[in-house]
């Protein structure tokens, strides 16, 4: 394998890590039935918080903790607004997204383009010497390792443990889960806050690792991409992570190809690409279009392909909870 492509693969994995963390967090929250639409604003505000905390304390750990706290707080507001005060999750999340965006611009006005600390690379001995796989997977930093472990742990937790079963039941049939003794409301609070904390860590992963530093609108738009990838991933962390990798890899490959033909139009294509990808992917998993394609396939192939393409949200996602 060409060394150049290995370097690109390693950089794709690095670039993907914050989005993977955010997708895992949002998947947990949505599996419990809470849509945290504040993701884009959360990411911005936590990226700033992480940078500022690490900048003043020179401690990366404090940076990540501060960011996780900000993300958790944003998610708590969404959860409180919908679970306690019965307001629309979408409305609260959307207002929070805009507020997070303008707050990050205002609070971060004196921190733009300052040199700050960043996460150092941490090669794993022995493993890093494996040909091809070593330089891609084991010559990275802690954020990348964390994102990969997180995918494994959340997948196992959601689909193979008893608490995971309760989590899914809270999102699918909350009334039935409640009747069986699951404290649905409390569970939704916990997973929303946990998911928000992970989104916060993702924000700090940008400002301290992948896109080091702070500038106004530092991660603008990426939160929406993450929300779309949760849908594409069919509310599974593993499929979501693959979606992130696919997304980042497509962008990298196309930017490499376009660099050879520099021009005005290639910049336009590169900027428009994430949004075109988002629309295309959502149309494919959305139903009507892929159903038309699927219905032309031989019957024996329809089922597996439908499983691969279609994705259904948790049945009670965003719905009001009637408990007790």
């Amino acid at each position, binding site marked *: 394998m060409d060394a150049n492509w290995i370097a690109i693969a390693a950089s794709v994995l690095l670039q993907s890590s914050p989005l993977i963390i955010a997708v895992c967090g949002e998947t947990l929250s949505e599996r419990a039935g809470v849509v945290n639409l504040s993701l884009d604003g959360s990411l911005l505000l936590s990226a700033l918080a992480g940078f500022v905390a690490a900048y003043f304390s020179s401690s990366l750990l404090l940076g990540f903790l501060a960011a996780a706290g900000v993300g958790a707080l944003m998610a708590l507001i969404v959860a409180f607004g919908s679970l306690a005060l*019965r*307001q629309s999750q979408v*409305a609260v999340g959307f207002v929070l997204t805009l*507020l997070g965006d303008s707050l990050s611009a205002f609070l971060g006005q004196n921190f733009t383009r300052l040199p700050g600390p960043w996460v150092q690379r941490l090669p794993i001995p022995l493993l890093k010497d494996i040909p091809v796989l070593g330089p891609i997977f084991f010559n990275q930093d802690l954020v990348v390792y964390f994102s990969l472990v997180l995918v494994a742990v959340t997948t196992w937790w959601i689909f193979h443990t008893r608490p995971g079963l309760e989590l899914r039941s809270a999102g699918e049939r909350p009334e039935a889960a409640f009747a069986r003794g699951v404290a649905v409301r409390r569970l939704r609070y916990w997973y929303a806050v946990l998911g928000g904390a992970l989104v916060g860590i993702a924000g700090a992963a940008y400002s301290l690792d992948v896109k080091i530093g702070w500038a106004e609108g530092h991660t603008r738009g990426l939160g*929406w991409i993450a929300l779309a990838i949760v849908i594409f991933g069919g509310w599974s962390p593993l499929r979501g992570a693959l979606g992130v990798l696919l997304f980042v890899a497509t962008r990298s490959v196309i930017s490499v190809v376009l660099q050879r033909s520099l021009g005005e139009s290639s910049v336009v294509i590169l900027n*428009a690409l994430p949004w075109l990808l988002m629309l295309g992917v959502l149309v494919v998993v959305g139903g009507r279009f892929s159903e038309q394609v699927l219905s032309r396939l031989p019957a024996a192939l329809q089922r597996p392909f439908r499983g691969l393409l279609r994705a259904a949200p948790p049945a009670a996602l965003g719905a009001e909870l009637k408990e007790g």
Partner: protein
Amino acid sequence: MSRPAWLPRLWPLLPSFVALLLTSLLLLAFGASPPLAFGAIWEGAFGNQDRLLTTVAFWIPLMLSSLGLLISFRAGLWNIGIEGQFILGAIGASWVALSLQLPAPLQISLQMLAAMAAGALWAGLAGVLKRWGVHEIFGGLALNNLAIILTNYLIAGPWQPPEGGSFRGTAPFHADALLPLVGATRFSVVALGLALLAFGLVVLALRNSAWGLRLKALGRNPRSALLLGVSSRRETLLAMAFCGALAGLGGAVRVLSWFDSLRQSISGGIGYLALMVVILAAFRLLWTPLVAFFFAAVLSGSVVLQLRTQLHSSLGNILTGVLVLLVLLFGNLDSLRAWWAEWRAGRRRS
């Protein structure tokens, strides 16, 4: 327990006051005096006749977009794509302005029609995507970003001014393409007339027409609306298209009076601001113009605040954002009481 009838109506003033307090704390943290800051906003919005007219000029496109959202929300649609529909309106108007030269009334009417068509088209696209299973929030958001990219492409490419200065906008439109302005302000009487006319029509359509009733049925309960013979497909597309047309008209007003050419940040978030207006007005028809006017005053007054204190211009957005959030969360006395009762019941149980 009995309570006076005025209490639930005046209750939202309390969270509004808290929002003002929180913003003051933020100002203090940045070393600015809140009375001076709010005074600067007030002066910037209403200080003299020109400033008042400028505030109204800012209000008009915001108002048109908010009116559009009243229609789409009535049909139960979250039209986040309004920002892109606004931008497409500006592009549509610019296209006619740059390619035709007709007598002013004809020219301006054509520009407005092109803007409404472009906005409706962009909204219709979000409607079609919804039919294909893409929620209007995601479809709209992607279309917003594509609209911004399209603007930048047009400015840097085909519509680049002849001198070759490709940085911020197209060449200024010819005089017959622009709306006549009052004095040295950006206020246009024609635009104000259009906004008031649009308000009247939207109120009539939503309150007194069978179409308004169908939209309401669709928004409240799509399933029973279907049983009553309301086609969700047709009404969804229509509601989106009308909203897009009004936002597009707003974009045209913006590009033909506030500016005189197509610029990079032609909207500057007016579409998103309109969403905030309508959420704060709780989707009520008569409150919408008032809330929109308050937002216009805060944001147009923030310009003076920025000049005086050197603080970042997003302060106006923070004030409005905190206000909408707190009123949304705590502005409904009934839901607060329900939560309080539930909480006490929960404590007694454990």
